[in-house]
């Protein structure tokens, strides 16, 4: 693919931004998703409702709408991600990816937390552990094993969905392809290069998830 070396700067910037979006958004959605999952398994019904409402709303609306909201709506609500507008768009895209994928992360984590046998939780409580201690020492450590492989699948989906940040104007991989296409009119080549670079990200990720699945299955 000589077009990649011909437009090395454009493609490498695109690849870098795609990877950055993936990493930041993944970290963010794991943190937010974990908080929502804790809400969803909470003994307090109102907290459970808030968690469920979040998951159902953000999972059933388009990611693109959420990206538009963070990119073009939130500034009107007084949210400024950065004084540098380009950096601001990058962060808005990250925020959109986080709010969307956190809903999926929360569902995975919730099913992980609920898969721990109730007897264990009752035993922990009757031994005098507080609710938070039970979460910290009994429920969460065991849930982590179950949760890791499906989280890997969310990471793959997220890395693909970063392409939607192109609509906000973030110069990630797909934007790079569009730039090269509009400069050269070599449409097929320009986008084949994009596809190849996405595969370089997603195929190793998929292999990693498969490996994790097998490992965790043996450990169980």
């Amino acid at each position: 693919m000589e077009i990649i070396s011909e437009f090395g700067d454009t493609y490498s910037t695109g690849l870098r931004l795609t990877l950055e979006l993936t990493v930041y958004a993944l970290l963010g959605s794991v943190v937010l998703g974990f908080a929502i999952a804790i809400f969803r398994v909470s003994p307090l019904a109102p907290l459970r409702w808030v968690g469920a409402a979040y998951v159902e709303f953000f999972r059933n609306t388009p990611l693109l709408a959420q990206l538009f909201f963070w990119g073009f709506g939130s500034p009107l609500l007084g949210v400024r991600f950065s004084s540098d507008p380009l950096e601001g768009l990058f962060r808005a895209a990250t925020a959109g990816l986080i709010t969307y994928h956190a809903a999926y992360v929360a569902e995975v984590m919730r099913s992980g937390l609920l898969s721990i046998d109730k007897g264990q939780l009752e035993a922990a409580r009757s031994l005098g552990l507080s609710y938070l201690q039970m979460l910290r020492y009994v429920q969460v450590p065991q849930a982590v094993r179950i949760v890791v492989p499906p989280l890997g699948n969310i990471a793959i989906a997220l890395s693909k969905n970063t392409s939607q940040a192109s609509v906000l104007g973030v110069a990630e991989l797909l934007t790079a392809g569009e730039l090269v296409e509009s400069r050269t009119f070599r449409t097929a080549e320009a986008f084949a290069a994009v596809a190849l670079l996405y595969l370089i990200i997603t195929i190793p990720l998929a292999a990693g998830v498969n490996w994790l699945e097998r490992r965790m299955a043996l450990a169980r």
Partner: protein
Amino acid sequence: MRPDTWPLFVDPNVLRFFGEGLLLTLQMSFYAILLSFVFALLLALMRHSRNPLLRWPATVYIEGIRSLPVLLMIIVVNFQGPDFLRPVFGEDFEIVPFWAGVIGLTIYTSSVLAEIIRAGIVSIPPGQWDAARALGLRYHHVMGSIVLPQALRRMVPAIVAQFTTLIKDSSLAYAIAVQELLSRGKVFYSQYFNPVDTLLAVSVVYFLLNYALSLASRRLELGRALPRVARDIALRDQAA
């Protein structure tokens, strides 16, 4: 928030404007669901086949396409699709953006759906195959009347979840200038400077659509007793 623009949302002309967008979203989703289900069934059967000439192309297609963003496919079909098909349909051949969107969504969704259907097929105990073959049934009878009906039934929740993903992804046709629901939201808020209100209203429509669909699939209560292996395969792509 711009409460002063709220009365606009019940203005008949504005309602018609958004209604036409919703109609396009629904039409695009409908055609893409129909087409991708047919292709997915074909791909799943090919990948499940023992003949390597059928199995390999299906495997490469499924694994390759599943690893790429759907937005890339929509854009490539819109840019390159006509060029690609001109040798077949003549020099004047064009693909309108609406159909480019449908084709892009179909290419992606059929690969994901094929894996869901295949997971359903492999979840049927092999004893049923043996029994049916021992009774003298041919492959297409076993597959068509015994295995597939059970497999599809088990996979209803996963299949419906993929359809809700498709409905959400149809908003990506914004990138190729199809005037569907979300694109119209953008047109609207660019005129009235109320992105928060408009995006919320549009999102609620998508939410109602998808939530109703997933409630319906839960109400059907199919696919409950799914073996773990099949569920794992089926859930692999649910975060798209």
